[in-house]
């Protein structure tokens, strides 16, 4: 266990950034999101939840796949280079780290997504325990420990000190690189912090959310439930929930006409959108109820059915905070719970 004074953190950022790209929560116009660190960036580790998750670091919202350039009648295809430099994502919470684990199940299985794989290979996760969990958090329901996230390096902010614990080879290497800024520390303070976090987690309103009845075997029953018909009604069909979600992984591939060629890029798509998976014949899910159902069925039924019971929700609670209509996965789970009680 190492530690560094909170006030020395800027030096740490700078040190890391000298060698690697550093992606860290940065506040811009009042909102905190993961961004590439620059000297003048307003780093914000106090905000528990960034608006968007850290997903962008590994699976950016938009990325170019290749570029076609036109010269006379000839076309030249230039593939986009894969990530080949190491980078550090600093401050990821337990839920976001788990979000990456969910994405791995999608993008690292055959056929492997080379863009994602390259980022995973070169990405170093410096995670951070949740000092003050919030009322919208429910990671406990998915078996996560907000006090002890996974990652290459795990950190805890305790008082004026950041405690630093490398847990993987990547983490060790990073630690060695910044060793001069770190001092040795015992685990006492961290243990106390963990206890304190756990106590708060117990008090969270959603901590006891039960996922009973949600697994791969209930497909037909859940799919055909009449509850969806009323549940979806307030849904505006925007993509907020999907875009702030650490695990949503659907994307669309589009071409941008640059005037002298085409940039083929992919960008996040949302199953809430009316043109999601639009086919020549129209849409295979042509009502908002169907689209709404799809999102939750995928997170809580289809995904676990195909991934040894792993849910593709990590309980970060961003959708709880951000849905314009105050709909969210918790309400969906509770609605079924209530119905089943009856």
């Amino acid at each position, binding site marked *: 266990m190492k530690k560094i004074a909170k006030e020395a953190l800027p030096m740490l950022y700078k040190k890391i950034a000298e060698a690697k790209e550093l992606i860290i929560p940065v506040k811009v116009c009042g909102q905190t999101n993961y961004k590439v660190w620059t000297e003048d960036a307003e780093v914000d580790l106090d905000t528990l939840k960034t608006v968007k998750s850290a997903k962008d670091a590994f699976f950016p919202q938009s990325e170019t796949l290749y*570029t076609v350039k036109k010269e006379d009648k000839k076309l030249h295809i230039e593939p986009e280079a894969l990530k080949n430099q190491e980078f550090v994502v600093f401050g990821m919470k337990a839920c976001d780290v788990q979000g990456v684990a969910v994405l791995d199940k999608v993008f690292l299985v055959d056929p492997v997504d080379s863009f994602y794989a390259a980022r995973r290979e070169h990405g170093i996760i410096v995670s951070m325990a949740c000092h003050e969990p919030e009322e919208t958090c429910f990671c406990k329901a998915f078996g996560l420990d907000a006090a002890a996230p996974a990652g290459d390096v795990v950190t805890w902010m305790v008082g004026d000190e950041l405690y630093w614990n490398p847990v993987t080879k990547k983490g060790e290497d990073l630690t060695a690189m910044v060793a001069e800024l770190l001092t040795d520390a015992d685990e006492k303070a961290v243990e106390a912090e963990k206890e304190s976090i756990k106590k708060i987690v117990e008090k969270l309103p959603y901590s006891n959310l039960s996922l009973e009845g949600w697994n791969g075997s209930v497909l037909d029953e859940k799919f055909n439930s009449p509850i969806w018909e009323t549940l979806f009604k307030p849904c505006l069909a925007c993509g907020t929930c999907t875009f702030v979600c650490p695990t949503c992984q659907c994307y669309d591939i589009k071409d*941008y006409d*640059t*005037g002298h060629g085409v*940039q083929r890029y992919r960008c996040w798509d949302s199953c809430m959108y009316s043109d999601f998976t639009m086919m020549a014949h129209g849409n295979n899910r042509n009502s908002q109820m169907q689209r709404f159902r799809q999102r939750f069925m995928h997170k809580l039924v289809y995904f676990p059915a195909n991934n040894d019971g792993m849910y593709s929700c990590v309980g970060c609670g961003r959708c709880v905070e951000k849905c314009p209509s105050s709909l969210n996965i918790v309400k969906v789970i509770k609605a079924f719970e209530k119905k089943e009680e009856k």
Partner: protein
Amino acid sequence: MSINNNSEFKPKIVAFCCNWCSYAGADLAGSSRLTYPADVKIIRVPCSCRVNPMFILRAFEKGADGVILCGCHPGDCHYTSGNFYARRRMTLLFSMLDYIGVENGRTRVEWVSAAEGVKFSATMNSFVEKIYSLGKNVRLEDLRCKN
């Protein structure tokens, strides 16, 4: 008219001209051999009211440095009132562009009749001159168009 051409900057300028007045005015400028810089490219539309703000923004997105819309003089619209709608739309659009920090000289509306070849040429000369003074449009161009 001479334009200070010492820089490499060759502006891209889109001129939307209504078929009945301004396009004919441009034709008259041509047949009268009234020159204006080749940077101006004309797109023929039936009426100034056909010009969607989207077209103008798209031009900027794709790298235009200036966009000018020419139509019949107010009251002389071939379709009676098209240019009145265009006038309100463009006023609001230009105001918005100014508001978000686009230099207001990059957009212009001029009324040019079929008989005003001289005015057409003079308008284009002065507009191009203005665009040269403003330089490259860097605030609206889509960065992807640069590669």
